[in-house]
């Protein structure tokens, strides 16, 4: 298993008592530019996202970073979903870059069309980003996404994974974790919530296409998120970034806990942070401070039922997911070395 390259910053500390990594603890290059006057604010304030929306936060950092990396020469294609709806209540728009919404399942192909037009018109200095939720990406958009990957179209595709169809009222998607409650996997019957052996890893599917760059990131570490965007923009061809974005409304978590929930997902092994180039895993972010899966689950009402004694097998299944991620991606290298 490849480890983080020496050159990359190892985060040493969290701020006391929180899950926040302070800017001061990081290399200049990895610091976020939240407060800078140069910040693009490509996704402007005033949009209609819920309080504590992980997707709004993630998208703002992703698009700002991509815009910076592209010297402001960036066009975005957006799938239907919360991000589209909360940013563009006609005639208002929160976007400060050229942005197009076409359909739910075609954002990758629209991005490919934009890239093709730019190539034909000799404007390869202008870069393309396409983005959507997990449903728009990993379910209905999968065909178009795979097409962009295998053709190696010059598009950075970003999936904001909040693990369900939120915009239509929290229905199950292929990213909804086992046992989770959604409006179509209700807490009813002998197997409450989502089925246990379902879902798929789209980052691994993306890697199987051998595209230049694949990464996962989370809003719990915005510096890491931004640096992965910048890295992705350094490549030409198809790139895939999946961002873990808690949804307080859909998950039944407190808006104030969005970062905490996201942090507990990575630190419990439920959402591995990885990078891959040309189909090969190149880096993983090791768990720094391992937390029990229960800590992550307890903050979310969608998992409340797994703590009932009769559903202990569901809790076990979720723990097993974390164990498998940790084994597969070597997320606890020190532990492995000592065992």
């Amino acid at each position, binding site marked *: 298993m490849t480890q983080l390259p020496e050159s990359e910053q190892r985060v040493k500390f969290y701020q006391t008592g929180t899950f926040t990594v302070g800017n001061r603890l990081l290399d200049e290059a990895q610091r976020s530019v939240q407060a800078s006057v140069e910040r693009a604010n490509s996704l402007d304030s005033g949009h209609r996202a819920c309080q504590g929306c992980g997707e709004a936060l993630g998208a703002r950092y992703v698009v700002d970073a991509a815009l910076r990396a592209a010297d402001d*020469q960036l066009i975005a294609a957006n799938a239907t979903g919360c991000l589209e709806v909360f940013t563009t209540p*006609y005639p208002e*728009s929160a976007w400060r870059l050229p942005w*197009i919404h076409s*359909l739910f399942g075609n954002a990758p192909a629209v991005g490919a069309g*934009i890239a093709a037009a730019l190539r034909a018109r000799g404007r390869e200095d202008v870069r393309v980003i396409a983005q959507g939720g997990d449903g728009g990406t990993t379910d209905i958009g999968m065909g178009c996404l795979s097409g962009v990957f295998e053709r190696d179209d010059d598009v950075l595709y970003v999936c904001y994974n909040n693990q369900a169809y939120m915009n239509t009222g929290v229905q199950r998607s292929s990213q909804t974790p086992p046992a989770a409650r959604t409006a179509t996997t209700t807490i009813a019957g002998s197997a409450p919530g989502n089925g246990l052996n379902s879902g798929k890893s789209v980052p691994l599917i993306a890697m199987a296409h051998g595209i230049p760059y694949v990464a996962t990131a989370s809003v719990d570490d915005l510096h890491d998120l931004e640096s992965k965007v910048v890295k992705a923009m350094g490549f030409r061809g198809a790139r895939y970034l999946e961002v873990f974005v808690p949804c307080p409304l859909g998950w039944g978590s407190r808006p104030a806990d969005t970062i905490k929930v996201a942090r507990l997902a990575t630190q419990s092994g439920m959402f591995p942070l990885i990078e891959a180039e040309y189909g090969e895993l190149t880096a993983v972010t090791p768990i720094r401070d391992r937390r029990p899966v229960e800590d992550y689950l307890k903050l979310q009402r969608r998992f409340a039922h797994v703590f009932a004694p009769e559903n202990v097998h569901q809790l076990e299944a979720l723990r097993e997911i974390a164990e498998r991620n940790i084994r597969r991606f070597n997320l606890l290298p020190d532990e492995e070395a000592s065992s």
Partner: protein
Amino acid sequence: MLQQIEGSAAVAQAVATCRPEVIAAYPITPQTHIVEGLGDMVKRGLVGNCEFLNVESEFGAMSVCIGSSATGARTYTATSSQGMLFMMEAVYNASGMGLPIVMTVGNRAIGPPINIWNDWSDSMAARDAAWIQLFVEDNQQAADVHVQAFRLAEAVSLPVMVCMDGFILTHAYTRVDVPEQGQVDRFLPAFEPRQLLDPAAPITMGAMVGPEAFAEVRFLAHYKQLEALDLIPRHAAEFETIFGRDSGGLLKSFDAADKDTVVVSMGSVIGTLKSVLADMRQDGSSIGLLSIRSYRPFPKQQLSDALAKAKRVIVFEKCLAVGMGGILAADVRMALANLSIPIYSVIGGLGGRPITQENLRRMLDKGVQDQLEEPHFHDLNVEVVHRELERLRDIQRPGSSAESILRDIAGADAAARGSR
């Protein structure tokens, strides 16, 4: 330049002279030869700065077209049949966003039963998608109308389908005067969209529109199609001055004025009808022909003017609104609502059923004597239908009839062979 050439190749060459910048290609019979031809020309460097994308589906094809057209590139694709249905969501999206994409439809039936042959079910399925739909009668028109289609699309900011009958035109080798680059350049100005995705002037496209503005947006699509009613004949006239050929236009009368009976139709069957009607006129019938070349927008006024003196109209079409009857016939009836004359709806050629001079003559001989039932199914094998209905009477369960009809026809063929 005059060539003895396949219809698809002629269209590919004509599209290439329009200097497309992005082409999305996905195979489906019978349009495939067009995109194959274009792909080859792009590879040989004959189409300028053109990107040719082999996409993963028709939905992907139209979606790529949406992205590229919105970024200011002249954009082309082609489809047929199931492909049209597969891209349908994006078809509506392209017109809703006012993107001047041009798409050839190699008209083909829609299954099941799966069928690769010609009828108009595919473009009719997109009838209300706000695309302009132009029908062509032969391959000369097919080549010419593509050149006009780009001009029109960009003038009214709506996408255009050029509908050409599958196989009958796409695969036919005929003599075509393929539009020449110099002439096309004189006719077709460079594509300069009013708004496009450009970092120098960021816009938001495809925003949500609520009840307060949606009706107005739809009305404007309708209004733009009505504008096209003016532009289409003007473009055709201008085309004629440059190219010396009559191609395009809203509709075309072939001896329809002052005739008692007028047959109205579209597409390649116009050619067959022309010779049948010439024979009938020689035999003393007062009968003429009217070809609808612009199906959407539908030239209601022009049609009613052209048929003001008709005593009877027979609409022949290769499509069916199941549970209702003729689709083109319904439009013609709407246009002629002020005339109190019989308008017959004849549905034929479905799934490629041959339309011959003989069977047309038989039908029209009945038609001029007001003996057609409503609607009339042209060349329908009534015995086979009766036998299947007979079989079904005893089976009160749902199921498909295609297989047993094929068995029936095969059995009847075998019996006929045995009796010879």
